């Protein structure tokens, strides 16, 4: 395998958990609910995924457990914010705190145990194709699921009646309610889908990324996923691009640090000069790029009101109490 292929594979690994968690949150926010508990649901998915895989020896059961626990955990958020109409921001933050603490407690017995790693796909001939072989046909199953989720969500939101209904609920819950749409039920479903996706992202961390359990192993990826949804202005394909951009930046900055300029001497001059400039940028600055990019995008989209109105779910974060 060439270096380029290896780099691309590493980027895919870094991007997949962001992509999954952000796709889930996108659906939640499209339904008009702001769930800041992504980090908490993710870490709960990670600990239960590890635990189930360790107990049964099957990474698939681990993945299933991660998805189910993520969804159940989000149900708590749904009950509080949708049925009891608590403040969504505060409840989401509480969910994150609860998840971080609870996972640490549950996971205490898993610390230091060897994990079960999900195998990568291996198709004869296809997986061995030069350059694209491993990338397209030789990755872990969750990678393919994440791409499928992008197709699925995009198709669902913009090509189906149910998707239209969900977006209507997110844009104006009052009108949707007046039309006889079950706003609360749809939001419950959306929140649980978000929880399942975040749980799967967590499972990816403890089953593929680093097959082990350590407290706080999500290390802020849930927050990046939240930023990513805004960065992508609530469009599925832009989430895909954003996740790979964010993942790419975080991997490339490591490569830029490790590479010796002398080893790049073979590059054409202009490219070499670019490399020289990039190498002189401090690594700390590069690490902050995903957040910086989100701020820039927020500034850009807020300049164009029409564009903002078109994509932002109009009832995002607003509580809904049906008047009887």
């Amino acid at each position, binding site marked *: 395998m060439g270096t380029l292929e*290896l780099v691309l594979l*590493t980027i895919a690994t870094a991007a997949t958990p962001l992509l999954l968690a952000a796709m889930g949150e996108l659906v939640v926010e499209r339904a008009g609910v702001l769930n800041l508990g992504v980090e908490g649901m993710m870490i709960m998915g990670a600990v239960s995924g590890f635990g189930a895989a360790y107990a049964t020896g099957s990474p698939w059961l681990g993945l299933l457990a991660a998805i189910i626990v993520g969804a159940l955990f989000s149900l708590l958020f749904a009950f509080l914010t949708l049925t009891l109409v608590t403040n969504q921001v505060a409840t989401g933050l509480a969910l994150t*705190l609860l998840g971080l603490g609870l996972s640490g407690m549950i996971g205490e017995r898993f610390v230091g145990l*060897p994990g079960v790693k999900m195998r990568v796909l291996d198709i004869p001939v296809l997986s061995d194709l030069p350059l694209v072989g491993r990338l397209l046909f030789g990755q872990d199953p969750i990678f393919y699921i994440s791409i499928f989720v992008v197709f699925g969500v995009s198709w669902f939101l913009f090509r189906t009646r149910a998707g239209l209904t969900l977006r209507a609920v997110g844009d104006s819950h009052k009108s949707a309610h007046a039309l006889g749409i079950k706003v609360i039920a749809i939001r419950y479903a959306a929140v649980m889908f978000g929880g399942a996706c975040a749980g799967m992202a967590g499972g990816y961390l403890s089953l593929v990324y680093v097959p082990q359990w350590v407290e706080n192993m999500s290390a802020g990826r849930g927050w990046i996923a939240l930023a990513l949804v805004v960065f992508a202005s609530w469009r599925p394909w832009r989430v895909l691009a954003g996740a790979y951009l964010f993942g790419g930046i975080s991997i490339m900055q490591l490569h830029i640090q490790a*590479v010796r300029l002398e080893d790049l001497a073979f590059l054409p001059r202009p490219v070499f000069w670019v490399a020289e400039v990039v190498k002189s940028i401090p690594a*700390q600055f590069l690490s902050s790029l995903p957040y910086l990019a989100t701020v820039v995008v927020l500034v850009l989209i807020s300049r164009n009101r029409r564009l903002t109105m078109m994509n932002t779910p109009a009832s995002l974060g607003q509580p809904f109490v049906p008047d009887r």
Partner: protein
Amino acid sequence: MKKMLFALAASAAVLIAGGASAQDKTKACFIYVGPIGDFGWSYQHHQGALEMQKNLGGEEKVEIAYLESVPEGADAERALERFARSGCNIIFTTSFGYMDATNKVAAKFPDVKFEHATGYKRETPNVATYNSKFHEGRYVQGVIAAKMSKGGVAGYIASFPIPEVVMGINAFVLGAQSVNPDFKVKVVWANTWFDPGKEADAAKTLIDQGVDIITQHTDSTAPIQVAHERGIKAFGQASDMIKFGPETQLTSIIDNWGPYYTERVKAVMDGTWKQIDIWGGMHDGHVVMAPYTNMPDDVKAAAEETEAKIKNQTFNPFTGPIKKQDGSEWLKDGEVAEDGVLLGLNFYVAGVDDKLPQ
């Protein structure tokens, strides 16, 4: 946002910890930068705390309270102040970034003893600093790396460009160059002490760029697992990580804090506690090497010989002639670096393949 959350969680945890009574018991409190389940830095500090408690008569005599994952910087101050108010007799702050917070809070609570790990500021008489010469172990690792590496390039996953870490990189390079003068080290700064995902990415990056030995100055076991997957050798960090790479770990530098914590808490009990600044190494038993594994006998012998020389203090890793990275002379032949210079080290020695972030 994340910081705020941790601070909230931290203060909540202190409230709970503070509820317990502390009459005839001595209360020793610990602030950790990561979770105690990191199997690295914070894990070892906590092991030291537990050992201390056992040595000094168990739970009847010593009460332990601790806070995990406390962010460095201003947030630590609140956590420390809560601890000081909750009846702690001695507080250990176990990361470099707690330095200013420790000194600030110590000035407000003259009756509480503060011990800050890896720092150098002791602004009031109730602040002591303690550290270990981990670089002694890194020198031994360098010797092993140079003997084991086929390509002559090792990968180094670093956390933050503080003297402690720079010293480690330099010691590793010097150890390696004592075997192979052309040995090179590639350094990647992860800018975190603990993020298994990012550390794994850093390890993959280094391996993709052709290194065949990995060493780390970050706290998780992820790099050693990646090394295992890719079939190369690696060194553990802070604790014995052999479980995570039975065929991968060459050795590991074990931080052995138990004896020191026992000594200091006992001093508080006896009323003999005094401000000190200690920098213990292999000689004092503060730095211990995990068993040498996965290497041929001659490499093992060389490692053991180096370790013995450092342990009986006949050899100091920072002994001249040593050149700085830019080629200028740092230490003359036979000259030994002063501790003060080492503790503020902010430059590389010749042979490090990296530009030190300033």
